[in-house]
Structures are given as structure tokens and as C-alpha cells.
């Protein structure tokens, strides 16, 4: 008998009588005032979220707040006139010097500030983790109250990698002192597009 069979046999022998799954479909969040709720929560976790009217406002904010002499990459077509588009065919290591990455999220979650990204909108999986600063655009209509609505939206999901990102990378491992920018981005900005 190989290890797999041995383990499966031990599981079968030791597992108790089956108990049913609970109904979790009744868990629902409150749909009111989601933009403001999202902005408030995202601030408490060290991020910066702001409402913008259009892509021009995004461009302006970036020009004013980031070092545009450094490498800025994006997967957003409307920004590709003066920014580098992320290629999914180059070695991911080559993105180590990215200062700012701007990508679009599928949606965001008001209760925890997280945005949902898949490799399709990341361009490359490493992008939102390796950049020094991360900026994400999300449509105001695409904010859900809680993770229950979030997973309803995701469904089974046709992605090969997906992730929630809820703020700049952080650690409090040294004497519980909060430090933003552990291994990933030092800052995260979310543009909520009207």
C-alpha cells in the first residue's frame, strides 16, 4: 500500500459520522454608502483612497504625487499613451525596479478595504507585490459590502492566480510597531472612478 492509500484509509477509518454544512447564504452586508465606507476603512489600514471623475484626474494625481522620472508600468489601456504597458512574456524579475504600478481591480470590499485582482488585470502576477508603490482603479459601482458578496461575484473564478490586496505591505514584528512597506509596496492608492 502506498502512502496515499495508507492516509486515505486512516482518514476513512477515523472520520466521524458526517455532519451537514451550515447555510451561509443568509450572511449579507449593508449596501448603503459603500464608497464612503470603503474610503474610511482603507484609511485606517494605512492606504489612501479617493474619488475621481475620470482617467485625466488619475493622470494628474500621479504626476503630482509620484516620481515620474522612475519606471511606471500599467495594464490600463487609457494610460498607455505615456506609460509602459506590462508585458506578460518577459521574465518577472525584470520588474524589480518598478516605482509605481497602476492596475484596474475587478471590485473592492467595503468592510475590509481589499481589492480583488487576478493575473489578467495584473499583467504579471508579481506586479502588485514587487512595485514600490501600488495604485489601483476601481469603479464606484463595483464596491461590495462584505466578503460574502465578494465571493458571490468571483464565483468559481476562471483565473490561474487571484488575490485580495488590502493596503500597503506591512509588519509589526518588531515590538508591535507598525511599519508600512515590509516586502511589498510602501504605499497603496485606490482611485474610485465615478
Amino acid at each position, binding site marked *: 500500500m502506498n502512502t496515499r492509500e495508507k492516509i486515505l484509509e486512516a482518514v476513512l477509518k477515523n472520520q*466521524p459520522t458526517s455532519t451537514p*454544512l451550515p447555510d451561509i447564504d443568509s450572511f449579507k452586508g449593508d449596501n448603503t454608502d459603500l464608497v464612503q465606507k470603503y474610503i474610511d476603512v482603507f484609511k485606517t489600514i494605512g492606504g489612501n483612497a479617493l474619488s475621481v471623475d475620470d482617467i485625466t484626474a488619475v493622470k494628474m494625481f500621479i504626476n503630482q504625487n509620484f516620481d515620474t522620472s522612475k519606471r511606471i508600468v500599467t495594464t490600463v489601456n487609457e494610460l498607455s499613451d505615456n506609460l509602459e504597458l506590462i508585458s506578460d512574456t518577459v521574465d518577472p524579475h525584470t520588474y524589480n525596479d518598478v516605482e509605481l504600478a497602476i492596475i484596474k481591480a475587478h471590485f473592492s470590499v467595503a468592510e475590509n478595504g481589499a481589492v480583488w485582482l487576478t493575473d489578467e488585470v495584473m499583467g504579471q502576477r508579481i506586479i502588485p507585490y514587487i512595485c514600490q508603490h501600488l495604485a489601483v482603479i476601481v469603479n464606484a459601482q463595483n464596491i461590495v459590502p462584505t466578503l460574502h458578496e465578494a465571493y458571490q461575484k468571483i464565483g468559481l473564478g476562471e483565473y490561474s492566480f487571484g488575490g485580495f490586496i488590502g493596503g500597503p505591505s506591512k509588519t509589526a*514584528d518588531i515590538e508591535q510597531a507598525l511599519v508600512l*512597506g*515590509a516586502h511589498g509596496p510602501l504605499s497603496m492608492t485606490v482611485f474610485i472612478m465615478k
Partner: protein
Amino acid sequence: MSQTKTHAALAGAFIKDEERVDWHDGALWFIREKRDKASKQIPEWEELREAASQIKSNVISNLHDYLLQFEANLKKNGVIVHWADSAEEHNEIVYSILKAKEINQMVKSKSMLTEECGLNEYLEERGIEVINSDLGEYIQQIDNEPPSHIVLPCIHKRKEEIGELFHEHLGTEKGLSDPTLLTRVARKHLRNVFLTRRGALTGVNFAVAETGEYVVCTNEGNADMGAHLSEVQIASMGLEKLIPQKKHLSVFLRLLARSATGQPITIYSSHYKKPRKGQEMHLILVDAGRTRQMGRVDFRDSLKCIKCGACMNTCPVYRKSGGLSYHNTISGPIGAILAPNLNMKKHADLPYASTLCGSCSNVCPVKINIHEQLYKWRQVIVKEGYAANTKALGMKAMAWTFSSPGKLTTAGKTGRWFLHNLPFVVNNKLNPWYKQRDMPEAPKESFGEWYVKNEEKEDNRQ
């Protein structure tokens, strides 16, 4: 690390530094308070705990079928599946995967399972260098110490001590102890590690049977930095990490970070499903005692644990004795009910490292009856003959004393006489109860004697 010393002995050493104990106690209580605040913002918090507990009951009672479903979906997704019966077998599998690719340096994100398996030591003996990339775990690694807490690996260390370690290992200026500056140094050093390692290993927080994907939660982004830059990605998981359906993640991700640190969600919750183009993805399903624990009716619910650490933060014994005094990878209350299953003789002392106050069970997000299991383990340990001699003798003496009212009265009188007339017989170094506390002043008479006297007075009045 001392393997032979008991929790009481190791805790005894820890509490010698009173200022540090108070600081440690306060730091953990602060996190417990953050957990309370976060949980109170969710009106349905208790319903979520109940749902999580029921989902985990369903997992444990249907694990066989879920494992088969998970395995089939992993294969469909292009992930290579391995099964390991023991820690040794797990380590051999990791080694063989790396060896086939001629990889001799690996970066690892937080994984209590691989700590439990002694993976780093195993690989290092075979010429493969492993670097732990979680900052707290990295600090513990360069100090040659295991993590003292599953979420906050170096919570017992002062920033000056960490500064000293960085001075020694990373060449920082002597005396540097600012957390932000130290973190920046580690960021730079570890970024170079991420960029140069072809092999990366992560743990698993939740694995979804329905889709064959697994979720890894971090705040630092270290799991993703390692995994997305690697040629070979390995995930190690205990069998109990499975959940049935994708939507169940909503319940667990709402509970996990709030229970752990009071955050609404960890910064990164990454859903790994298929390998990147040109990348190899492996997943190792590890038993290592889990099926044995499933067979222990009183203790199988311990497998519901989602490793949030809330029971440690709230435990008065943990807060005042430090995680390392538990001499087990997983410390605190949950560690004390998991460890005896792995090695009952070695961990016979751990279920006694508790006041049985029940706070652990009250904060547990999956409602494990931790304090009841601690009490039950004590009975098993005594029955199996693993209780410490002093404990077994003490309990025999107590059983004899309580066996008749006469014996109890005599014992009480004797005790009070000694406390009044020869206190040094009780208040000495040989009596562990006297450590860090004074014995109470003994009353002149027992309640029984007082009652008899007062009953007579009452009778006279009538």
C-alpha cells in the same frame, strides 16, 4: 532549545525578568483588545464563529471525499500532488523536488507545518540553504530560536535585541533599534533573496476542495514575492486545511485576521490555482499525526484550528510564560492540546500549563473547546502513566485525603498547625506554590469547626 525541561521549568526562567514579563503580558493583551474591538464591529460575529465551526465539523467528517475531490482538481489545474505520512516523508519529498531541479537555495514563507517537520535543519544537512522570509521568522532564524508565537514569531524580543542581531548578521550600525529602520534593512536584504531563489515554499491557510486552489495569507507580501519569482513553487499543508467550497472562504477570511490581530483582513490573501507559464507547482498533503488525532473522539475538534493565535494572546499562562516555554512549534493553549498527540511523553506537561479559565475557548473563531480538551488530556496523561511523579503522588494523596471526612479534618488541622507554628515547613523553596507568592494566612479554625460552633449558638438562641 532545551528539550528536556518542562514548561514549568522554562517558564520559571522566563519570569525571572519581571519587567520583561510585564511588557510581554501587556503586548499580547493589547492584541487581544484589538481583536475584541474588531469582532464587535461585526454584529453577526457569533453566527460567523458558529458557521465556521460547523463547516470544519463537516470537513473532518467528510475528509476522505474532500481529499479525493481536491486532488482531482489540483491535477486538473496542473499542480503536482504528493502525500506524506510523516514529517520525514514530507522532508524527503521537498528535498527530491529541489534536487531534481538542482536547487540549493530556497526561500520560505511562514509555515508552522514545516517548522513542526524540522524541514530547515533537514535540508541544511543536505546542503540546501533555507531562508525564512517572514520578518519575525527571519529574526528567529538568525537567532537560532524557533518562533515563540504562530502569528508574531518574535513577540518576546525587545527591539534592542533585534538591533544587536542585525548588527551581527546584517552589518547595521551598533545600537540601531528603530523598528522602521531595521525593517528597511531587512527589506533590502530579503529582496535580494527573493530575486535570486529559484525555489520557494509556502504554507497553506485554506485549500478549496471544489476548485483545487489554495489560499495563503500574509501581511508582508513575502509569500507572493517568493512564489511569483520562483521556478519551482512548493506548498505544504496539513490534511485539515481543506474547506469544501469556494464561498466558505468568506466566513474564514472574515474571522481570521480579526481574531489574530484585529485587522479587517490580512493585507494579502492570495489564491493560487495554476502554475505560471514555465513554472512547476507542487503541493504536499501531510498527515503526520492528523489522522490519529481524528480518531481521538475528545480531541478531534482541535483539527478545526485556523492558526490565528487568539488563544495565545488571551491566555494568562501564555502571556506570562512566553511561547518558547511550551517547547513545541505551536505554543499556547492550542499547542497544548495538539502536542500530546504528536508525542505524549514529551508533551505530558503542556496540558497542565493552564488555569482552565476558558478564555481560549471564548475567543476561538472556530469554537474549539480548548480548555475542556486541556482538562481531558490531563486525565489521559495520568491514565497512560505520563504524569510527572510529583503530580501523580500529589493526586494520590489528595484522593486519600478526600476519601473520608475524618481524614480531611485531620489534614486540615495539621496544615493549619504547621502554617501557624512552623511556617517554614510550607513556605520554602521546595514548595512550588510558594514561588513568586506568599502563602495565605491560615484561619484559626476550619469552616466545619466554625459551623458547628455557630450552629450551637443558633440553637441556644431558639
